[in-house]
């Protein structure tokens, strides 16, 4: 079941809808996330960093299990964390601090494995590559840096990034990575009104696209023909990567067209590869679902009054979806299924390095078991539903 998950910068909780039917699911409470602050950790649970007062000295990261609306685990990192990212298995979480440091935690134990000085100003976005080999970070100083995850994790000594792209003149607002691992492209958007396309294999700028307004969010077409750029003027521009673009168009070089419904600024985008849908979150608190082919809005979700600033599309494991029906009882029986909170400081003793390999294993082995029983669980689900309907009908 593909669900759309959205959060806002003012406390509106985390909205959750079924993408196919449009039915709203459980709404998770008390979440005011910064942009790029919401993440699904290995599809097992949701984690979000929280916006804090500027005066706050520590950060705030919350975990929600799928089944409970209340945040179950609260962590307080050493400094305010804005962007969060997790690798695809959900074994590690990285968070970007406002001082420019990046923190790396192990999810299963909550240990802070590493903290390194990555940027000179606050980190604004963090992205894992598809194969978890790279971490890409963008910063307030306009710098985009590419780190090799394994090097970061293993090396005790502080080491250097793989690439540092400094061509942006203002704060980086979003980064996406294409397909193809080390030879992929990355696209970065910035407050300097440009999006830049970089080559990871050659480590240089491939294309610079100037937009009519600041781009806050980007989403990549799965074929990498175009990318979508949500701008502050309320339009979603379509920019050419591999597609032909005529030099004479109204918006500028490489911009093919735009999706627009005269709404307020677009703050976040997500692309559903399976259904070919583009989701956009807006300043007015709506999540719009666009059919990319026809360029029409096919659905709208109302999230909150304030701006939506995170959208995720997660294919939620059904086993957990089922638990929702008797959420309270389920979680009470099992206790908290979530890992411990993230540690504030790294305790760098030698023994930590030894257990690392052992701890790695359970984290990765979690998912396949879920996946293998999907079909049987689906049937069980249906049977249960039918039984319930039958019994309720009988009662009436």
């Amino acid at each position, binding site marked *: 079941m593909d669900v759309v998950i959205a959060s806002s910068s003012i406390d509106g909780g985390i909205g959750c809808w079924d993408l196919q039917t449009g039915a709203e699911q459980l709404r998770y409470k008390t979440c005011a996330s910064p942009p790029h602050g919401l993440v699904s950790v290995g599809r097992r649970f949701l984690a979000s960093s929280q916006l804090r007062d500027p005066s706050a000295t520590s950060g705030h990261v919350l975990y929600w299990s799928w089944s409970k609306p209340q945040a179950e685990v609260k962590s307080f990192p050493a400094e305010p964390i804005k962007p969060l990212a997790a690798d695809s298995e959900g074994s590690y979480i990285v968070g970007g601090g406002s001082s420019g440091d990046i923190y790396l935690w192990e999810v299963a134990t909550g240990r802070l494995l590493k903290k390194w000085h990555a940027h*000179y100003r606050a980190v604004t976005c963090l992205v894992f590559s598809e194969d978890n080999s790279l971490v890409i970070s963008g910063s307030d100083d306009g*710098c985009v840096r590419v780190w090799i995850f394994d090097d970061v994790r293993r090396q005790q000594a502080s080491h250097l990034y793989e690439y*540092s792209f400094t061509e942006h*003149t203002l*704060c980086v607002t979003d980064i996406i990575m294409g397909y193809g691992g080390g030879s992929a*492209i990355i696209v970065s958007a910035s407050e300097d009104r440009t999006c830049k*396309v970089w080559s990871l294999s050659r480590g240089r700028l*491939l294309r610079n696209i100037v937009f009519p307004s600041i781009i806050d969010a980007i989403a990549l077409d799965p074929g990498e023909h175009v990318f979508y750029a949500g701008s502050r003027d309320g339009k979603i521009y379509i920019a050419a990567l591999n597609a032909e673009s005529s030099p004479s168009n109204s918006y500028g070089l490489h911009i093919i067209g735009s999706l627009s419904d005269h709404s307020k600024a677009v703050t976040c985008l997500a692309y559903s590869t399976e259904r070919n849908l583009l989701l956009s979150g807006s300043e007015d608190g709506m999540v719009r679902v666009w059919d990319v082919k026809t360029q029409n809005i096919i659905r709208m979700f109302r999230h909150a009054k304030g701006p939506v600033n995170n959208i995720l599309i997660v294919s939620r494991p059904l086993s957990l979806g089922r638990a929702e029906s008797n959420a309270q009882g389920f979680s009470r029986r099992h206790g908290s299924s979530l890992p411990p909170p993230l540690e504030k400081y790294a305790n760098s003793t030698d023994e930590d390095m030894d257990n690392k390999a052992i701890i790695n294993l359970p984290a990765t082995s979690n998912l396949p078991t879920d996946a293998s029983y999907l079909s049987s669980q689906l049937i069980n689900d249906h049977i249960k539903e039918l039984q319930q309907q039958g019994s309720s009908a009988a009662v009436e």
Partner: protein
Amino acid sequence: MWVGSYSDPSPQTLFKLPRPKTENPFKGGPKAPTRLHSLNPCTRWQVGTRVFILQRKLYSIIFLGSQTVIFSTMVRSKAPSKKQQKKGIDFKKIKRKLGRKLPPPTNATNTEIKSKAIVLPEQSVATNKEGLAVSKKGLTLKELLQQTSHHNAKVRRDALMGIKDLVLKHPAELRLHRYAVIEKLRERISDDDKVVREALYQLFKSEIFPGCAEDNQGLFISLVMTYIFNAMTNLSIDIRLMAFRFFDLVVQYHPPCFSLYAEKILQSYEDILRKNQFYLEDKGKLKSTLYGLVRCLSLLPSKKPGCQKNILGERKIHAFEPDLPTENTGFSVIIKKLKELVLVLINCFQDFIPLLNSMPQLDAQSFDCILSILQSIDIAVRFFIYGNHEESPEANPLQVTWDQTLLSGLSKKLLGVFPLYPKHHLSVKEDDRYFILNIVITEIFLHLREWICPSANVFAKFLEFMENALLGKTCSSTRSGKATWEKHVPSLLPFIPKLVSEVTTDWQSHLLEAFTKTFRDCNPESSLKLACLSMIEEMLIPRGDMHYTEASDPVALDYQTIWIRELPLLLILLGDKWPSSSQVVLHLLLRLGQFACWNSSLIWEYENTQFALCEFYSTCREGNIYYGPFMRLPRDSQELSICCLYYFSNFSTLLLKAITSCCLCPELEPYVLFRIIEVVHAAYKAGHIQFADHISFFITLLSRFKVYPENICPVKESDVQISNCGTFKSLTCMVCSCLSQMGDSSVVFRILEKAILDLISLKPQLDNACAMLRVLIMLDSKPTRLSEQSIIALSNFLPGYLMDVVHCIPEVDGNEVAVSNHVQTCRYYLLPCFFLFDRSNQLVKLFLNVMGSSLTDSSLSLESHNSTQYVTDSLSRMNITVSLLLLIYKDVKVQKIMSLFRTEIGSIMQSIASLQSSEVNMTIEERHKFQCSFERLKIVASSSPVVYIDDASISLSGA
């Protein structure tokens, strides 16, 4: 008989006839005449005949056209008879007396030719060459090319000149036949004649290479290169030198050709430079050869890789790249060759040293030669150190390639003689020349420093020179000396960051002091300044290394603060005259803002630059605003300077004021204006700007922005060149959206309410008032949050405002489009009031009361307390009131609201009616017109709205 006569040493031998051909016919003796006879028919279609007497035989030459020449031989009839008589006496020597002519034999053939006309069809001046490209002398390209191999040097030269001439007139001719041309011309590269070579060089330089620049040069070049190499090994030294010049030319037009032939070329240079007997004599030629060498060597990859290539323009991102060979391939094999060459160059240099000492003065040519030698060594050394030798088999070329002979040669023969100084001090010019040479030697030394491990003594010698050079002590103080200094000091600068971090504190401060002085003293627009700036960037901004020492040494810090303080001043000094230099400074400032966080004292300095930067934007003195260079810089520089603003973590009010006045300047491009708002807002979001400052920035923009033309006329949106109305509308939109993002709108509203109402009561222009009303309603909600006091203030303001709107936007009669356009324009200004009406009935009531009272009470007329600048007499006031009410009634929603206030409307109607009756000076037409609209108003006002239209009918989309 033939043999005998042949051996006759006749002085008249003009023609060397092919021997076997002529011999055979005579072997048969008597047969000859018949043979001749058989040939004779040729003469029938002869075109011209000429007869030569040669060795007492007659050769008649028959011209058949210009090409074919047939020789027929006519044998003297006497010769065979003579032979018959004196048979037996072979080899009889016939004595002849000089000066005496033999009497013509009796049976001599008369060789006189008489003809009426000579017809030379091919060589005729009248040849039809129409349509063919010809030179000034009427020769075609083919003919000219033939003539280039003429045995006469003058003809060859003329032919080359002819080709040049022809190509100038018919460039297409060269493009068509370029391979034919080059194939023929290349033979002349090793021409014996100097003049011809020179002419060829000029031809290549001016016509052929530029003409063939765009197409496939590889083939073209390879055609030439074989002949150039040939000429390089020629025995004649002149031809060889010329060959180097030709090669130089080829390299200029096709740089990759050096990498193709690098080894061979270097060998040739080495060979020629070894011949030291000539170069001391002919320095002019040596000079040009060395220039060529410098040019070739400068093509070596000697910089660290990583230079930015051009980004893809139109191409698709994932398209395949054309498989071009990279520029750096093929250079690794020449390391050995190059080393030999460097040794030869060092010897060359050494040969010059005694010459320098003996000569009274360093003349220009020797200077050029030495400089070129030194530059070549410098480039080679750089190639050894920084060149990309990855392809070479050696794992680390640095250790392997530095063999001891080279190093010792360099350090002893070259660095040992440093510094060069004039023996006999004669002229200032000489000083400068020695200065330049010393600079190049210093450069070589600094490159080599790590490999030769100099003694402290030597090192100090060079450091001292550097310091003096930076301070400008070693250079003459004349204008030319100053220019030389500015030109050559930049080459020393790149070493400073590294040196500073490695030398002792004492030298460190010396060098930094000298560097800072250089930076301060040089012309703001000079390249030296730019070089200084890039060095400052290198020393200020940590490159790559994240763990730059937090506590950088105090010595450097002092100078760093000086540099940073200097930057804004430099920016103002540069003004708008040197945009490229300004761009560099701005870029440095931006980088500083982005990366200065690693050092708290630097960030402090950066923060402080904003006070100096105010002047860059604008200054306010005695009420007048003086715009800084920002306003006149090109757009990309403006953008850069705007970006710098974002990184001030404490945006000073002073700077914001300066920027605001720039924003209000009508000359500022709308694009830049919007960028400023965007960046300022982003800075606010990042917590760099105080809330109050930010609010007042917006309010100032809205209230003080000058919209022109002042009275609104219903112009179309396309007429942007005469009006900035559209810009102001987008500005209003932008400010509204920014304000709505600032947080809880009710709080923002509370803060803004008083400020806006105060400003509104000052009677701003219509557009400004409209913008402020729009901000107000955007933040307000239904029912209104306005306080009692502000409602009263608004009710006093609105009648005047609305009447001004109606007055300023004249009603149009005519076609539908114009009318609807007019309504649209009015609606933009009326809409905020409608919103206010909708949200507060109290306001409507007060508003209508004020309207009514202003009509009746002329003493209390609107101008006394409101902004009617235009409406003066009661008549026009009456007219306007009617049309305003009509406009208000056009909106269904407002109509509904108005229906609640029948009594107030009724009283207004009454007063209008009474006014109208009392009005005397009104023409019939006016009266009629007024009556019509008044009747319409009566109907509209009395009919209550029946159609219910929901809230959505009023929306800001009407804007």
